[in-house]
C-alpha cells in the first residue's frame, strides 16, 4: 500500500530535524497571504507526484482542490524535495489581521521563520510593519516575497527601470524595519537582498515567482519575464519558475531548522528557568526530554472532536501519553497523534520535538495553552480576556435546530475565542458577542453556511461604566443592620488595566508574584499585598483593613458584592472598567448566622454603588479603529463619512495609486457603515475595523444613551442617586 509507505517515509523525515522548517506567512491584509499559501499547498503537498508515482497523480490533483479550500483554517505540513533531499515545511496559520487578542504573537511563537508578503503596488503598509515588528520581537527570521509584480507590468505599465526602482524601494523599506525592530545581534545577519536569495518576486495568482540566485541558475533574466508578459505567456513563467519552488527554497536555505532556532529563541519566548531540565530540553530541542508543547490552534472536528495543534518544543508525544494543561490543573490522555498533511490529518502515533503535532483527546485545550508532561512555566499567561463590544441575540428559525445551533456556537467559540456566546436563561435567547458589527456579520455567515437558519436581533453596543475621580467612603449596612462595610473607589491606573487585559496579572495568580508586579508599577506594599480579587474587565478589590474581626469568614461574600457591582454598574447596569475598590473597615456581627451572603453582599454593593456615584461616574463607549483603502480621488467621500459619524481622521497615507485613510469611529455609529461606504465610493473602498479604545460618551449624549440602555433592560428611567443606596435613617 503506497499510503502506508508514504507515512512511514514522512515519519523518517520528521525525525531528522535538519529537514524540518516551521514557518508562517505574514502580510498586510489583501497583500496576497491566502493566494501565496494556496499556491504552496497546491504544489507541495504531502507527496510530490514523483514520490507518489504517476499512478497517483490523478488522486493528487483531486486532493489539491480540497486543499486549497482548507489552507486558511489549518496548520499544514508540506513536503518538498530540494536537490534530491526531502524536507518537511510546517506552515502555521497566522491570523490575517492584527488584533488585540495575542493570537498573532501566539502563532509567531510556534514558528522560526516568516515569509513576509508585500504587494508590489502598495508597498510596505502599516500592518506589514506591525507583523514584522511582532515577528522580530519573537526572534522569528523574516524573508520577503514581493507579490503582484504583474500589476506593475500590466496595470501600471511601468518601465523596466521604474519596476526595479519600485522593487528595490520595498526591500529597502523592509530592511529599515529590521534595523528598527531587530535586536542588535540579528540586524545585519537578517538583512534582506535580491542577491542573497532572501527576496522572491512573483505573482501568487498566476503561481510564478523566483529569487535572483534561482533565476541565475536557470539562465532567466528579468527582461525574459517582461517579454513573457508582452507575449502573454504566463504558462511559460509558471513552468519555468513555479512560485512554490521560489518560496520553499528560500525557506529551506534561510530559515533555521528547529534545533538551531530553539537555541536562541527559547531564552526569548519562554520565561521559565533555562537551567531547569525543561529549559535545557527545549533549548536543545531534545526529543528525549520532557514533552512541552504550545497550542496555537484548536479546531473541532465533527468526527474526532477537539484537535489541538501546536509546536512541540521538547520531548516526544505518542498515543496514550498523559499531558497536563499547565496552570489549569487538567490532566488528559492523548488519544491520537497526527500531523496535518494538506487537507488530511494523518495518524503518526508518535512525533518528536521540533514538529507540529495535531493531538486528539485533549478536550479542554485552548489556543495559547501549554501542554506538558508535568507542571512547568507556561508560554503565556492563561487568562486571556477578550472584550467584546457588540452583542446580538440569535435564535433558530425552527426550534428543532436548537441543539445543532448550540453545538455549532460552542464550536465557533472554541475556534475563535474572541467570540463569546451566552444563554439567557430567562428568555432562552442566545447572545453572541464579538469585536465589532463586522465580526458578528461574519459569524452569522458561518452559521448560515453550516445550514442553520437563524433569526438575529439588532446588534447592541456594549458599554462600560467608569469613574472620573476618587469617591468618598460610604457605610454600607446589611439588611439586618448588624453588619457595616466601608469602602471607597478610585481610578485604577491605565497600565494596571492593561496588565489585566493582557493576562499578565489575573485572579488565580500567586499573590506574592502579583504583589511584586504591582509594586513594580508603583503600588505601595500594603495595597499590593491586599489584593482580594481581580476582575478580568479591569477592576480590582483591595483589602486595607487593619485587624478587623471575622473578616476572613466574610471575604468571599464581600468579593461577591464587589463582583455584582463591576458586572452591573449603577448608571446603566453595564460592566465597569478601571475601578479600584478599597475596603477600609468592617463592623461584623460576631455570630455567623447574622452575617451570611444575604447580609454581607448587599452591604458591600451599597457602599460601593454610593462611592461610585460620588466619583463622577461616566459611560464609556467602544471606539473602533478604521482603515479604508480607496483610489485617491475618493478620499474626500471617506473623510466626510467618518466625520459625519462622530469619527476622527487620524492619518492619511497617499501613494501614487492608492490612498489609505486611518480613523477612529464609535462602534455605535458603524451599523450602516458598510452600506454608506459602498454607495459613496461605488464599491471601490476596502475597509476594516478593529477595537481601539474605550472613550467617554460625549456629554451631550450621556444621559440619552444611559436612558436608552435602562429602557432596554427594564430599569427605572431615572438616574440613580447616592441616597438610593445608603440609609438616611
Amino acid at each position: 500500500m503506497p499510503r502506508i509507505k508514504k507515512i512511514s517515509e514522512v515519519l523518517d523525515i520528521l525525525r531528522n530535524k535538519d529537514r524540518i522548517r516551521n514557518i508562517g506567512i505574514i502580510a498586510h491584509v489583501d497583500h496576497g497571504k491566502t493566494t501565496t499559501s494556496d499556491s504552496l499547498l497546491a504544489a507541495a503537498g504531502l507527496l510530490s507526484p514523483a514520490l507518489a508515482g504517476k499512478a497517483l497523480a490523478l488522486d493528487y490533483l483531486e486532493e489539491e482542490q480540497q486543499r486549497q479550500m482548507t489552507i486558511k483554517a489549518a496548520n499544514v505540513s508540506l513536503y518538498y524535495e530540494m536537490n534530491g533531499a526531502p524536507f518537511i515545511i510546517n506552515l502555521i496559520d497566522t491570523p490575517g489581521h492584527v488584533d488585540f487578542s495575542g493570537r498573532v504573537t501566539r502563532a509567531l511563537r510556534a514558528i522560526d521563520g516568516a515569509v513576509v508578503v508585500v504587494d508590489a503596488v502598495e508597498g510596505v503598509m502599516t500592518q506589514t510593519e506591525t507583523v514584522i515588528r511582532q515577528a522580530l520581537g519573537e526572534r522569528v527570521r523574516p524573508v520577503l516575497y514581493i507579490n503582484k509584480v504583474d500589476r506593475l507590468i500590466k496595470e501600471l505599465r511601468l518601465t523596466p527601470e521604474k519596476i526595479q526602482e519600485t522593487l528595490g524601494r520595498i526591500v529597502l523599506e523592509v530592511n529599515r524595519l529590521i534595523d528598527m525592530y531587530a535586536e542588535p545581534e540579528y540586524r545585519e545577519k537578517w538583512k534582506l537582498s535580491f542577491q542573497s536569495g532572501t527576496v522572491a518576486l512573483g505573482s501568487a495568482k498566476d503561481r510564478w515567482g523566483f529569487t535572483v540566485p534561482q533565476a541565475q541558475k536557470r539562465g532567466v533574466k528579468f527582461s525574459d519575464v517582461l517579454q513573457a508578459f508582452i507575449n502573454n505567456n504566463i504558462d511559460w513563467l509558471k513552468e519555468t519558475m513555479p512560485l512554490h519552488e521560489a518560496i520553499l527554497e528560500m525557506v529551506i536555505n534561510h530559515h533555521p531548522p528547529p534545533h538551531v532556532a530553539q537555541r536562541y529563541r527559547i531564552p526569548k519566548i519562554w520565561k521559565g528557568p533555562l537551567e531547569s531540565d525543561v529549559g535545557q530540553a527545549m533549548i536543545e530541542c531534545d526529543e528525549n526530554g520532557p514533552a512541552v508543547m504550545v497550542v496555537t490552534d484548536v479546531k473541532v472536528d465533527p468526527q474526532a472532536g477537539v484537535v489541538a495543534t501546536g509546536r512541540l518544543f521538547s520531548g516526544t508525544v505518542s498515543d496514550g501519553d498523559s499531558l497536563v494543561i499547565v496552570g489549569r490543573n487538567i490532566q488528559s490522555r492523548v488519544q491520537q497523534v497526527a500531523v496535518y498533511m494538506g487537507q488530511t490529518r494523518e495518524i503518526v502515533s508518535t512525533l518528536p520535538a521540533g514538529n507540529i503535532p495535531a493531538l486528539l483527546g485533549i478536550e479542554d485545550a485552548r489556543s495559547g495553552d501549554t501542554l506538558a508532561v508535568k507542571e512547568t512555566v507556561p508560554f503565556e499567561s492563561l487568562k486571556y480576556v477578550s472584550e467584546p463590544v457588540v452583542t446580538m441575540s440569535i435564535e433558530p428559525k425552527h426550534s428543532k435546530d436548537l441543539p445543532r445551533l448550540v453545538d455549532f456556537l460552542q464550536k465557533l467559540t472554541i475556534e475563535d475565542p474572541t467570540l463569546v456566546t451566552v444563554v439567557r436563561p430567562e428568555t432562552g435567547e442566545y447572545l453572541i458577542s464579538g469585536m465589532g458589527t463586522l465580526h458578528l456579520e461574519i459569524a452569522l455567515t458561518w452559521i448560515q453556511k453550516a445550514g442553520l437558519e437563524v433569526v438575529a436581533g439588532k446588534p447592541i453596543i456594549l458599554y462600560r461604566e467608569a469613574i472620573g475621580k476618587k469617591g468618598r467612603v460610604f457605610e454600607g449596612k446589611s439588611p439586618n443592620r448588624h453588619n457595616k462595610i466601608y469602602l471607597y473607589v478610585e481610578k485604577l491606573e491605565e497600565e494596571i488595566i492593561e496588565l489585566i487585559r493582557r493576562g499578565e496579572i489575573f485572579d488565580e495568580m500567586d499573590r506574592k508574584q502579583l504583589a511584586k508586579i504591582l509594586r513594580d508599577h508603583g503600588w505601595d506594599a500594603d495595597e499590593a499585598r491586599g489584593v482580594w480579587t481581580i476582575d478580568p474587565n479591569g477592576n480590582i478589590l483591595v483589602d486595607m483593613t487593619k485587624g478587623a474581626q471575622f473578616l476572613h469568614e466574610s471575604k468571599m461574600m464581600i468579593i461577591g458584592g464587589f463582583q455584582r457591582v463591576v458586572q452591573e454598574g449603577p448608571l446603566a447596569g453595564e460592566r465597569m472598567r478601571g475601578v479600584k475598590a478599597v475596603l477600609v473597615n468592617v463592623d461584623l456581627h460576631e455570630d455567623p448566622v447574622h452575617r451570611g451572603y444575604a447580609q454581607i453582599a448587599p452591604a458591600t454593593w451599597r457602599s460601593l454603588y454610593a462611592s461610585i456615584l460620588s466619583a463622577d461616574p461616566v459611560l464609556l463607549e467602544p471606539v473602533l479603529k478604521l482603515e479604508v483603502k480607496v483610489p485617491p480621488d475618493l478620499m474626500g467621500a471617506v473623510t466626510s463619512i467618518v466625520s459625519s459619524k462622530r469619527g476622527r481622521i487620524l492619518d492619511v497615507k497617499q501613494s501614487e495609486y492608492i490612498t489609505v485613510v486611518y480613523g477612529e469611529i464609535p462602534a455605535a455609529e458603524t451599523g450602516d457603515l458598510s452600506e454608506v461606504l459602498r454607495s459613496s465610493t461605488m464599491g471601490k473602498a476596502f475597509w476594516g475595523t478593529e477595537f481601539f479604545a474605550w472613550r467617554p460618551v460625549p456629554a451631550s449624549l450621556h444621559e440619552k444613551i444611559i436612558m436608552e440602555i435602562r429602557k432596554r433592560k427594564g430599569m427605572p428611567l431615572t438616574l440613580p442617586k447616592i441616597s438610593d443606596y445608603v440609609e438616611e435613617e
Partner: protein
Amino acid sequence: MRLLALFSGGKDSLLAVQKALEMGHKVACLLTVKPERLDSWMFHTVCLSATPLQAEAMNIPHVVIKVSGIKELEQIELIYSIKKVIMDYEVEGIVSGSIISNYQKKRIDMLCEKYSLTHIAPNWGTSSPELLGEVIRRGYVVMITSVNAYGLGREWLGRIIDEESVKELIETAERYGFNAGGEGGEYETLVLDSPLFNRRLHIKDYEVVWKKNYGYIHPKSILLSAKS
C-alpha cells in the same frame, strides 16, 4: 421550675413557651425587651405592641423592659432591669427561643449565671425546616412582620407562614445564602394564634414601611377576638 420567658411575640419564643409548659415548667412571667433602635442585635423590634395582647390571650403576666438597642449597652441595661422582675416573680430559670445564634445564647447564659438561674432553650439545635414544620403542625398562625435579607422582598411582608410559603422560604434561603428560620435576623414574625391562646389576634389594618434594603409592617390596630 418557675420560669421567666423572653418573649418577642414571634414564633420561636412562643414555641419555647409551649415546649417549656409541656416539660412541666410553669411560665410565671413573659418579658418583652423593647429596644429604642431598629437595629438591635439581641431583640425583636417590630410589632411589640401585640405582645400584651398575646399575654392576655394566654393569661400569663407580662412585663416590658425598655433598652436603648445599642450593641452591648442593651445587654447591660437588661441585666440591671431584669433583677426586679426575677425577684417579683420568684423565677428559677429563663426560657428563650434561641435556636442557633450563639450570640444570643451566650448573653442569656451570662445573665443566668449572674442571677444563678437555669437557661432553658427548648428550640436549641432544631433545623429551620424542622422548626417551620413544627409551627405549622402545632396550628400556629404566624405572620411575617419584617424582612431584612437580600432575597426577601416586600412581597413577603404580611404573609402567613403555611406549607407553600415555607417551601418558598427554604428555596430562597438556599439561593441567597441565609437562615430559613430567620435566626440571622432575616425576618421577624408575629404569632396571631396558637393552641395556647384562648382568643386570637386580628390585625385590622397595617402600613408597609419599605427601606430599599429591608422593610417592616406597622399595625394600625390589633384586636383580640374569639376564635372561630
